[in-house]
């Protein structure tokens, strides 16, 4: 693995930084406060190619690497956790499985619109009774000759109200257990498919997290994604990739909190000097920075392995586990350094702290990541 960033990556970082500073940072507090999906940002990102970074050129994407994609999610999340997860769920959880498991027709039909940002993607696995134990799927897909009929519901679905394409996991043969689970593509507006309750959340409040309801929802036969009975494996592989996105989001949140804290400790004076002059501040900042950099190496490593088509499941689990726990720790300390001001919405660290918590939960809790890592050790 090359630890130097290439000139191309350097130019990309320059672009994404200019974009995030000018277009995302100024509205980050507002979309949090108003729990508003950043529609205008998605449109702008679509035009620049940020919504389809790893999608191949022949399907309208940028044909770029997972490394650059993870850098994009990191940089976006540095200023706005909501926008970071919008891009991550869209790319890793919807475009990625269509790229990896879709038929040529499915790729032609969905990827160009996802890559341009004209369509937003979402992914539905979690159910009220199927969280970490994702195999307990109760949503069913019944084979009705020339179509599939979906019944059931999904919860906590990112991008829900604003997505146009959903990758939905459902049980096709309960007697087969996890081998009876399949994946489907459902389009917005399909009769029998509605958006349910919108969650009121602690953080990432603009990301539109809702319930998806399927009541005799009929979808065409060709909307089966991947092979019948392979949906659980598709979902697990998809989440492996998604974890790189979430690790990058957590890393971005941690970096954002670091940036704010460094700036604040240099400005804030107590006892006659800037608080950055106190050794307690310096030692804590050093520990925080070390963990942020370690997280970055984990994320880069997992993205590198995915780009090289090497096994990366454990690497992605470690990246997500470490980066998300670092994000929580760093944002907590960032508030402590800001004191009472940090607890208010006058400073962005309050929002970063709230946004960070979810990174330890979604796309596999920290406990799930430990199960993946230990499972590999003890197999």
């Amino acid at each position, binding site marked *: 693995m090359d630890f130097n960033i290439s000139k191309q990556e350097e130019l990309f970082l320059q672009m994404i930084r200019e974009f995030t500073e000018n277009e995302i940072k100024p509205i980050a507090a507002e979309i949090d406060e108003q729990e508003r999906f950043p529609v205008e940002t998605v449109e702008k990102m679509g035009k*620049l190619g940020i919504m389809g970074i790893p999608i191949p050129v022949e399907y309208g994407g940028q044909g*770029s690497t997972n490394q650059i994609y993870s850098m994009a999610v990191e940089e976006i999340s540095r200023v706005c956790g909501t926008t970071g997860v919008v891009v991550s769920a869209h790319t890793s959880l919807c475009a990625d499985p269509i790229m990896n498991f879709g038929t040529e027709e499915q790729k032609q039909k969905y990827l160009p619109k996802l890559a341009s940002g004209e369509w937003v993607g979402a992914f539905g696995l979690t159910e009220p009774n199927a969280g970490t134990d994702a195999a307990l799927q109760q949503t069913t897909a019944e084979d009705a000759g020339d179509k599939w009929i979906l019944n059931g519901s999904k919860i906590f679905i990112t991008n829900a109200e604003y997505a146009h394409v959903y990758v939905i996991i459902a049980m096709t043969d309960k007697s087969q257990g996890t081998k009876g689970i399949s994946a489907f593509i459902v389009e917005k507006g399909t009769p029998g498919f509605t958006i349910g309750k919108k969650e009121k959340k602690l953080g990432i409040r603009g990301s539109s997290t809702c319930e998806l309801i399927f009541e005799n929802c009929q979808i065409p036969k060709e909307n089966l994604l991947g092979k019948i009975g392979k949906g659980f494996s598709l979902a697990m592989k998809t989440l492996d990739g998604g974890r790189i996105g979430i690790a990058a989001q957590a890393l971005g949140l941690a970096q954002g909190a670091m940036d704010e804290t460094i700036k604040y400790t240099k400005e804030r004076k107590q006892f006659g000097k800037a608080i950055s002059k106190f050794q307690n501040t310096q030692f804590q900042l050093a520990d925080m920075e070390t963990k942020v950099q370690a997280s970055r190496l984990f994320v880069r490593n997992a993205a590198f392995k995915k780009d090289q088509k090497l096994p990366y499941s454990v690497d992605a689990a470690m990246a997500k586990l470490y980066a998300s726990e670092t994000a929580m720790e760093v944002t907590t300390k960032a508030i402590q350094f800001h004191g009472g001001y940090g607890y208010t919405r006058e400073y962005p660290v309050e929002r970063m702290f709230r946004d960070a918590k979810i990174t330890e939960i979604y796309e596999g809790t920290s406990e799930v990541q430990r199960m993946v890592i230990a499972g590999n050790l003890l197999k």
Partner: protein
Amino acid sequence: MKIVVCIKQVPDTTEVKLDPVTGTLIRDGVPSIINPDDKGGLELALELKDKFNAEVTVITMGPMQAEAVLREAFAMGVDKAILLSDRKFAGADTLATSNALAGAIRTLDYDLVITGRQAIDGDTAQVGPQIAEHLDIPQVSYLQSLEYDGKNTFTIKKQTEDGYQIVEVDGPCLVTVLSTANKARYMTVKGIMEAFDKEVEIWSADKIDVDEAKLGLKGSPTKVKKAFTKGVKSAGQVYEVDTEEAIGIILSKLKEKFII
């Protein structure tokens, strides 16, 4: 339509430090960017490319590192990039710089030459107008907006000290652009992916159409007599008062210092 845009790589800071011995800028460790007014010029060219399918060539003069701003220009959408890089160009003042750039432009087909108004490191605003003089073409400086009739006439709104002038000019001509003329576009991911597959042409002094005596240090009549870092001023005092009280304070301060 064929457009040539001249851009400059400049240090991204307002706190440029000077080498007290040589009187030149210390560029080490300072990130470099496309000069803001030049970026306005690039955007103007790219808008004409979008509307009229213009071909845009970008030129810069500088050391090999200056290639970075040409890659950025590729990622924004320009068609061709030329880097004038040769020891013979080194030590150039604005006159020698404009001679080199004009020498390169002379070898190209062009209907419109665009430069930024001025660079944030030198602040002279001389290079653009000098290029127009060398090429013997009309020039309009301080461009705020431009309309093109699709044939050969440009209608330009130019900023003046107390307002605007609207002028009409036929190509080939040169304009100098303000960074406030537009909002420069971002590079695209696709542009960045392709930017490194395109060729930056490196031109030496032999390749351009100009007398070598007019280049580099030899061709530079300007000599830096002395350079110094400005002394640090104290932070000053801030009064948050209404206008009348403010006038009173200002008057008493000016009297206190025997200025009035």
